[in-house]
C-alpha cells in the first residue's frame, strides 16, 4: 500500500507559546530584578525619591506611543513566560486531569491580563 505517506500532519501551536516563553524569559532575566528593586523596594522604603515615579511622570510616559508599548511589554510579556512554566509545573506535581483545560486557563490568563493592560493604555492614550 502506498497511501501510508498520505498522513496529514496537524500543525502545532507550540512554537507561538514557546516563542513568547523565550522572549518573556529573556525580559524576566534581564529586567525583572531591577524593576522589583525600584518599584517594590527602593521607592517604598524611601531609598529612592518617589518623585521618580510620580503620577505626572508615569502618566506622561504611559500615554506616549513608545511609553505605552514599553509598559505593555514590561507588564504582560513576563506572564507568557511564567504561565507557561506554571502549566508545565502542574504536570510535574502530578495533576493529570484536564490538561487541555489547564492550558486554556494558563495561556488564557496571560492573554486576559495582556488585554486588560492594553485596553487601559489605549483608553488613557
Amino acid at each position, binding site marked *: 500500500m502506498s497511501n501510508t505517506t498520505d498522513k496529514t500532519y496537524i500543525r502545532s501551536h507550540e512554537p507561538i507559546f514557546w516563542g513568547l516563553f523565550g522572549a518573556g524569559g529573556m525580559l524576566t532575566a534581564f529586567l525583572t530584578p531591577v524593576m522589583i528593586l525600584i518599584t*517594590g523596594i527602593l*521607592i517604598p522604603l524611601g531609598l529612592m525619591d518617589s518623585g521618580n515615579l510620580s*503620577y505626572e511622570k508615569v502618566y506622561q510616559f504611559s500615554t506616549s506611543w513608545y511609553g505605552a508599548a514599553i509598559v505593555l511589554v514590561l507588564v504582560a510579556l513576563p506572564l507568557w513566560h511564567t504561565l507557561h512554566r506554571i502549566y508545565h509545573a502542574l504536570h510535574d506535581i502530578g495533576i493529570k486531569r484536564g490538561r487541555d483545560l489547564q492550558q486554556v486557563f494558563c495561556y488564557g490568563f496571560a492573554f486576559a491580563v495582556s488585554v486588560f493592560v492594553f485596553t487601559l493604555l489605549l483608553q488613557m492614550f
Partner: protein
Amino acid sequence: MTKRKPYEQPLPMDWWLKNAFYTKYMIREGSSILITLYSLTLAWGVFRLSQGEAAFDAWMAALQNPFSIILHLIALALALYHTITWFSLAPKAMALWIKGKRLQDKVIIAGHYCVFVAVTIFCLIIITL
C-alpha cells in the same frame, strides 16, 4: 468499554524534595508564581493610573506596606535565581561560532552577566531622569 487497567506509577507529592537537583528545579519553576504576582501588581498599577492621581498615589502607598516589601524581597531573590539559571542555560540555546571555532560557554555566560549589570545600572539611572 475496555476493562484494561494499566499500571500507573505512583507519584508522591514530595518527589522533588528528595534530591537537591530536583529541588532546585522546582524552586526555579516556583519563581514563576511570585513573578506572576509581581506582574499582576504592575497591571493593577496601570489600572490605578488610569483612574487618576489619587488612585495612583494610593497604589504607591500600598506598596509601602511591610507585607508588600517582604513579598517583593522574596520575589527579587527568586527573580535573581531565574536570571542565574537562565544565563547558565544560554550557551545551550545559542551556539556561536567565530572563525570556525565555537565560542566557549563561559564567555557567553560572562557576556550575559555584563549586559545584565549594564541594563540594571542603565535602568537605575534612567528612572531618575
